[in-house]
């Protein structure tokens, strides 16, 4: 009798726990999930909306993308991580706030402090010069000119202290070239001022280049990926340079890995991961991402430490090229 009671009780308790667990899983998501995006409105935000829409469809909810630009993405990341760890806030973790700013001492976190969902996309940059340039015909000649004429050239990496700035500064340091960086807040204006010969060289992204391939001359693609070389019409890549910048794979590229607060419950995280992986595997999402000029990434969360860790150590070991550039410019002034 006692045994029957115990069995009955156990079964009831088991059923209750199972039902509760199922209900808890079925309950998430009960409402919209916010995606915090660290940049202003533009191509990158449109791309995040594509991924968020697909992921929302997989989860059966809406995932509005909220733009919170400021301080190279650290404002958005701080805000996202300050929200409750309930899975209703996902951060669009670009390399700048996630890896670069901590290296520069502008953020007190490490990429390991977060739970990854899945890799999202990457985008390649290139260094472009003016069309009809007579002072040089390729990147190495430009570096030689720059070395002989320290401080004369003007270039832009878009924002200051972003990834293109660090990579370009490292390239310039490798050739002992000192040039004046001119910060811009809108990438489109960088392209415009390079095209109208106000700047000597600048970083360009695939989107801007594809709109006006005849307005600039690509000197160096900041990526080793064949797809990036193709996107920039077969221009030379950093892998073909005479010097080793110590950058490979995602190291010199912009990319985003969607992350959540580390205290997010595991079951919720798993649900988000599954939805994002299914979304990123969809052909319509891949097509849309490629149409904007980004490359879809297919790594799941298990590769996070390996891939992001690799970038972190590459950027760390690049030394402080930005500080070198600043010191050299001060000497000239």
């Amino acid at each position, binding site marked *: 009798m006692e045994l029957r009671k115990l069995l009955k009780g156990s079964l009831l308790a088991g059923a209750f726990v199972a039902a509760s667990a199922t209900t808890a899983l079925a309950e998430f998501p009960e409402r919209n999930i*916010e995606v915090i995006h660290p940049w*202003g*409105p*533009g*191509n990158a*935000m*449109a*791309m995040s*909306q*594509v991924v*968020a*829409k697909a992921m929302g469809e997989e989860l059966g909810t809406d995932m*509005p*993308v*909220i*733009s*919170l*630009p*400021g*301080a*190279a993405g*650290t*404002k958005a990341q*701080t*805000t996202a991580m*300050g929200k409750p760890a309930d899975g209703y806030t996902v951060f669009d973790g670009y390399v700048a706030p996630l890896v670069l700013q901590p290296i520069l001492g*502008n953020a007190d976190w490490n990429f390991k402090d977060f739970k990854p969902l899945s890799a999202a996309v990457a985008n390649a940059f290139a260094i472009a010069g003016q069309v009809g340039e007579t002072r040089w015909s390729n990147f190495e000649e430009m570096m030689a000119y720059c070395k002989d004429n320290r401080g*004369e050239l*003007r270039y832009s990496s878009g*924002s*200051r*202290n972003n990834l293109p700035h660090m990579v370009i500064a490292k390239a310039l340091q490798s050739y002992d070239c000192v040039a*004046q*960086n*001119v*910060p*811009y*807040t*809108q990438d*489109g*204006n960088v*392209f*415009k*001022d390079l*095209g*109208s010969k*106000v*700047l000597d060289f600048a970083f360009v992204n695939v*989107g*801007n280049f*594809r*709109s*006006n*391939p*005849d307005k600039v001359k690509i000197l160096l693609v900041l990526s080793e990926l064949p797809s990036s070389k193709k996107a920039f019409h077969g221009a030379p890549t950093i892998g073909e340079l005479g010097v080793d910048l110590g950058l490979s794979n995602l190291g010199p590229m912009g990319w985003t890995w969607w992350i959540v607060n580390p205290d997010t419950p595991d079951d919720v995280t798993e649900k988000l991961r599954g939805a994002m992986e299914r979304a990123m595997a969809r052909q319509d999402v891949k097509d*849309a991402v490629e*149409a*904007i*000029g980004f490359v879809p990434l297919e790594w799941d969360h298990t590769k996070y430490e390996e891939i992001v860790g690799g970038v972190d150590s590459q950027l760390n070991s690049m030394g402080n090229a930005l500080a070198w550039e600043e010191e050299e410019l001060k000497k000239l002034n």
Partner: protein
Amino acid sequence: MSCCRSASGTSLSRGRCAVIFDFLSAGLDVFLSPIALGLTFAGIVVGLVVGAMPGLGPLMGIILLLPVAIGLPPVAAMGFLIAIFVGGSCGGSISAILLRIPGTPLAAATLYDGYPMAQKGRASDAIGIAITSSAIGGLIGGVVLVFCAPILASFAANFAPPEYAMLAIMGLFAIVVISGGSIIKGLLAGSFGLLISTVGTDSFSTGLRFTFGSHNLLNGFHIVAVVVGLFAISEMAAQMMKRDLLKIPDVKVARPGLHTITLTLKHWVNLIRSSAIGTFFGAIPGAGGVISSFTSYAVAKAAAKPGEVYGEGAEGGVVATESANNSTVGGTLVPTLSLGIPGDASSAMLLGALLILGFIPGPAMFENNPDVVGGIFMVYLASNIFLLVAGILATPLFVYVLRIPKVYLIPSILLLCSIGTFALQASVFDLQIMLVFGLIGILFRSADYPLAPVVIGMILGPILEANLRRSLLISREGYWIFLDRPVSAVLVSINVLLLLAMVYLTVQRMRGAKETALAKAMSAED
């Protein structure tokens, strides 16, 4: 110069005009589908609503509905989004006119004359004029977009940091013109706007300015939270002080008809001039609709006929601001479509939408996808016509708001302001900023300081600072860069002349005021 010339201007090319008509004809085929027509009309309605709601605006409307649009056929999708842009750019004037609250910063200059018109019982006329001016201004911007895009884009592409800095200074002169009562108070309010625009991360040194350790301030104050606070909260506070909270206002709701078109067309010089200013500022990436509406207002006020008292309900004031800010939309589409360089944040989202839909904006799109380019031209032109129809039909509904007793109206508006401001960045901090600036707005009003110069200072401050510093970094000869470049040198000369003229007129005005006061005192003694 005809826009049918080639971009180089070397030869008159009938071929180019023929190509434009080919675009329009190809675009007409894809535009004349029920889905494209329906969504363009729906976009106008959505745009008017998000524009009229304080806090929201065309950018927020586009961001919210982009995920819906990207699943649609290309021209229908772009029609929907562009119509939101067009409707939203006009919608802000409705709350500015009815409630003295600009629905978007774009409409901050409209309340100068729109609200006094409403107070004089001409709310329907004011809204009708705003909508008609917006539609005609938009159509003028559209004609420029269709016929002159490559030429205007190549001209605008030569605007570099020195030219932007000089344009920003020119925009600041608008403060003097719109200040009305006291120029000193206007300048102080403008300086306050410049000061608060410095808060946040300095994009040149990456240093933090006046952030006081708060990550919420890393990007400064959100302009919309500031505008809603300054105008809406202070206005609602002022309304609450009156003793008519329960009174049902006796407002005559008249449907604006064709006569508002006649009223608008009476100001045809102002209309064309303001639309040209708006299109010009729109075509320069980063300049924006707020500068164009304030500049147009300042120019219209300076060129006013005797008897036209701006600031007290002059129709010309509404015509100037609304035609300018809607023609800016056509202007922003010029670099967006021709060069793939967005003119402002809203057109950046449109550019993103085009890319997702599989089209790369730029010269190649004109060659490879004439139907899509033509379709976009058509939806833009049609949006402005739909705006006129939808706006005039819906005006009685809008004006009906004035018949709601304040005891219901005030809390409803405060609720809408809070929802709109929170929705910007899903941020409670923005709500706090809105309330703080509401308090500042109350103080400004009680001391009779104008509020609009704060908005001008806050918008032009970052443009001026960044482009001045950028120019000096680019220059190898210091400040000479402003005179070395021909367009910049012309703008420097215009600014110097404007400065001299303003000093002269201000001295004359002060002398006149002194003489009037003296004459009054003497007559009192007699």
